[in-house]
């Protein structure tokens, strides 16, 4: 059934369809309506879950850890400072190998306070061992949450589904809502291999030797290395059942491949509109990066083939370094034979608009330059 709903409603609906047994979330703009919707579903009985009311995001995530350790499927959602407040527990959850699904509605970090989107909140959690996927549309949010449960429970690691605040969370748009029966067939209940069981007592997250910790870290890396293969396998199943295909990296290749814009999230949607309107005849293509952790190096290299130049647009800033995606992309290409010039651009911080006209002026400027400009270009705001 196709309905007009917001990105946040799509997230709450997906969570409901996944049948989580424990939900704990603390309100923060622009995430609030996800928690409110799920509270409504549990109150009216349409979702049989334990909704734990908490006094902070730390407690919300701690409740998710408890639920997940007991073998339950759990869900939480947050934004910005709320995610930062969960920080130490994110490390804990990945170390304890808990497949917690967290939706983060991206919002810039204070100070100063802003409600607008950028990705510094989730990218600050880069090294916590949580998977990260960035979505462009409400449909993608809904579908990715279903895929995320299956993926997280298969590789046994926590996962973030990241969606842009307001530009996605508060846009009403058409979404195909799958039937519960179909979702149940795609996503059966969690079958935890290890969980807290009073009949078979065991210690979780206890003290270990240095050597044991070392081995645990090696295992996380090995399982991370397997995530993208597993994701492809699950996305095949998803495609067969629901007819929508998702990949770690999405590419638009024009006939004449002069330049590619690499970006993520809703910015990719505006780039698509630009390509259709003006970019196509200039030979402009798109690489939309969905996965940030693990970083899809091989898919990126494949997607770049044939392009002569690349612009990376980062809606984030690592002060003192520059755009975070740009760093990752350059590092991924280190040592590869067919390297192309890469122009690093920062744009849209704090929710500043990036329009088709902005993109066109940027592309025209970059196409004129013989050599890629070193350092970082700031888009007009």
């Amino acid at each position, binding site marked *: 059934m196709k309905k*007009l709903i917001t990105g946040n409603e799509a997230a709450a609906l997906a969570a409901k369809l996944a049948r989580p047994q424990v939900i704990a979330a603390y309100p923060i703009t622009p995430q609030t309506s996800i928690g409110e919707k799920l509270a409504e579903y549990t109150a009216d009985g349409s979702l049989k879950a334990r909704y734990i009311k908490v006094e902070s995001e730390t407690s919300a995530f701690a409740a998710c850890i408890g639920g997940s350790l007991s073998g339950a499927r759990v869900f939480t959602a947050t934004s910005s400072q709320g995610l930062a407040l969960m920080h130490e527990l994110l490390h804990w959850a990945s170390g304890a190998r808990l497949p917690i699904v967290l939706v983060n509605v991206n919002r810039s970090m204070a100070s100063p306070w802003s409600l*607008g989107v950028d990705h510094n909140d989730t990218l600050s959690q880069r090294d916590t061992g949580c998977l990260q996927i960035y979505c462009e549309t409400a449909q993608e949010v809904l579908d990715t949450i279903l895929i995320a449960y299956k993926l997280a429970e298969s590789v046994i690691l926590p996962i973030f589904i990241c969606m842009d605040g307001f*530009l996605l969370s508060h*846009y009403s*748009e058409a979404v195909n809502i799958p039937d519960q029966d179909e979702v149940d067939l795609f996503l059966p209940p969690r079958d935890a291999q290890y969980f807290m069981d009073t009949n078979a007592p065991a210690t979780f997250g206890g003290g270990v030797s240095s050597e044991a910790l070392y081995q645990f870290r090696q295992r996380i890396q090995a399982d991370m290395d397997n995530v993208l293969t597993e994701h492809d396998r699950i996305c095949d199943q998803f495609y067969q059942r629901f007819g929508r295909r998702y990949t770690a990296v999405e590419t638009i290749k024009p006939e004449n491949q002069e330049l590619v814009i690499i970006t993520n999230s809703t*910015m990719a949607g505006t780039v*698509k*509109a630009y390509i259709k309107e003006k970019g196509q005849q200039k030979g402009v293509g798109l690489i939309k990066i969905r996965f940030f952790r693990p970083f899809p190096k091989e898919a990126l290299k494949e997607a770049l083939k044939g392009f002569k130049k690349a612009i990376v647009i980062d809606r984030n800033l690592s002060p003192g370094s520059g755009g975070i995606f740009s760093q990752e992309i350059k590092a991924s290409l280190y040592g590869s034979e067919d390297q192309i010039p890469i122009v690093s651009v920062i744009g849209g911080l704090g929710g500043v*608009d990036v*329009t088709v006209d902005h993109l066109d002026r940027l592309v025209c400027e970059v196409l004129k330059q013989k050599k890629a400009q070193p350092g970082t270009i700031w888009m007009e705001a």
Partner: protein
Amino acid sequence: MIEVKISGRGGQGAVLASQILATALFKKGLSVQAFPSFGAERRGAPVSAFMRSDSEEITLRCGIQHPDWIILFDPQLLENPLIMGGATENTSILLNASKDLSFFDISGFKKTFRVDATAIAEGLNLKTTSFSIVNTAMIGAFARASNLIDIDAIAAATRDLAPIKKQENVAAAETAYGRIKEVLR
């Protein structure tokens, strides 16, 4: 693509108006987006909501810079540069206003329409302690002014989305559809 900006005071229902309009167009098979202005909204402060529709898929994700239409729930907003900044000679406007528009400069727009939505809303007892709820009347009038959508589709979407007083809200939309006037310069 058609881009519409709906501006009013926080609490007057601009966001719901954008959703009613989007729903009506969506049910006709068009691709739509409806979204509020972003920020910390306050009751009484100028706020805007937006609506895009197109026969093709819309992938654009940014604010509406130069709307084809601006719908103003309060004609005083004509003087607010934050609301009117993006208007061009291709922008048409629809005002909630009783007869006298001589206080306002309405030159420079493609077309100007007015409807006394406050009188229609109050006649149907659509009001709170602070405001008349003019959103459904304004959307009914917009259907006539823009020729984008028929009043039956607006009435159906209003019935779906109005949280209370469904019948009165549908009546407001239909009455305003009948009473709208073009303002000739």
